[in-house]
C-alpha cells in the first residue's frame, strides 16, 4: 500500500529549504555538503548550514528522509517512500500553480 503523501505546510519558515533538500535527494543519497551544493545549484541561492540542518532534522522527524549507515563522519541521507511521494505531490501542486498562472498571463496578453 503506497504511503500517503505528507504535507510540508507544518515546516514553518523552513518549508522552502525542506523542499530544496527533498529535491536535492531526488536522484540519490547525499551527505550534508553535497545537499547544500545541489540545493544552491537548483535555487541559485546560498543555503546556510544552520538552515540546512534545521530542515534535515524536521524532514527526518517526519519520516520524509532517512540517514544511512556510514563509516565516515559525513552521514548520507536518502528520500523515504513517503518523502518521494510528498515531493511528487508538492511538485505537482507547483506545476498546477505555474500552468494556471501562465494561462492567466497568456489570457491577459491576448
Amino acid at each position, binding site marked *: 500500500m503506497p504511503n500517503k503523501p505528507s504535507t510540508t505546510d507544518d515546516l514553518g519558515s*523552513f518549508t522552502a529549504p525542506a523542499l530544496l533538500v527533498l529535491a536535492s535527494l531526488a536522484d540519490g543519497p547525499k*551527505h*550534508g*555538503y553535497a545537499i*547544500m551544493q545541489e540545493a544552491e545549484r537548483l535555487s541559485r541561492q*546560498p543555503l*546556510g*548550514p*544552520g*538552515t*540546512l*540542518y*534545521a530542515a*534535515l*532534522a*524536521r524532514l*527526518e*522527524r517526519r519520516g520524509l528522509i532517512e*540517514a*544511512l*549507515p556510514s563509516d*565516515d*563522519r*559525513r*552521514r548520507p541521507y536518502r528520500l523515504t517512500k513517503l518523502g518521494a511521494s510528498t515531493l511528487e505531490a508538492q511538485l505537482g501542486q507547483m506545476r498546477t500553480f505555474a500552468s494556471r498562472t501562465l494561462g492567466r498571463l497568456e489570457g491577459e496578453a491576448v
Partner: protein
Amino acid sequence: MSPHRLVGLYPAAWRKRYQEEFIALLEERPVQLRDVPDIVWGSIDARLSASLRSGPAGTFERFTGLAAISAGVVLLGTVLLIAFVPTDVYLEGWGHASAGGTLFYPLAFFGSLGIHWRQARVRPNLAWPAWMALVLGGFLGSSSVGLSMWGGGIPASDFGPLQAIGLWVGSAAIGAAVLAIGAFPRLIGLTFIIGSALAMIGTIAGESFSGSDFLAALSRGGVAIYALGWIATGISLQFAGRNNDGWAGAPA
C-alpha cells in the same frame, strides 16, 4: 569562529544526534561570516522546536510539580518573612523558620517523586540511586534548613554535624542527579548546589561570627536560591520533559 564553538550553541540532544556530521560539514566548507547568524538562528530553532515538541505533562507530574512549587514558595516566603519582618524576639524568628522547614519537607518530598518520575523515564539505571540520594539528603538537610534561614548566631549545641553537612550533601545530591541525568534544565541543578552551599557557608561561619549581618544575608540568600530551584523544578514538571530521544535516531 571555530565549528566546535558554533555547534556548542545547539541543545545537547541535538548535538548527540547531529554534531559529528555538522562539524564535518563546517570543516569541509569553511564557515563564512554570513553563516554565523544562520547557525545562531538554527540553534535557536533547535531549542524552540525541542520545547514545542515536549507538549503537556501527565497528571502525576503536574501534581508533584505543584508540590515542588509550593515547597519553594513556602521556603522563599519564610526566608523573606524572617529577613524583612522585624522581630526582636529570638524564639519568634526561630519559630517561623521551624514552621517553614516543617511544611517544606513533605511538600518537597512529593515534589521529589515528580523529579524521580521524570528521571526514571530518561535514565532508569541512574534514577533509583539518584532518588535514594535525594530522599536521604533531603531528610538530612531539611532539619538544617530552618537553621540556615534563621542565619548566623546559632548556638553550636543546636547545630550538630549531621545537620551541618545534611543541607549541602542532600541538596548537592539533588543537584548532581539533575545535572547527571539531564532530565531538567542544568540551571535547576546549579541552584540546588550553589544555593545550599551558600546557605551552609553562611550558617556555619555564623556560628563563629555571631550577629554578622553579612553571614545572615549569605545564608538566607542561599536558601532563597535553593527555594527558587524548587519553584523552577515545579514549573519544569508542568511540561513534559525533554529526553535524549528527542531527535530522530541515526544508524551506526
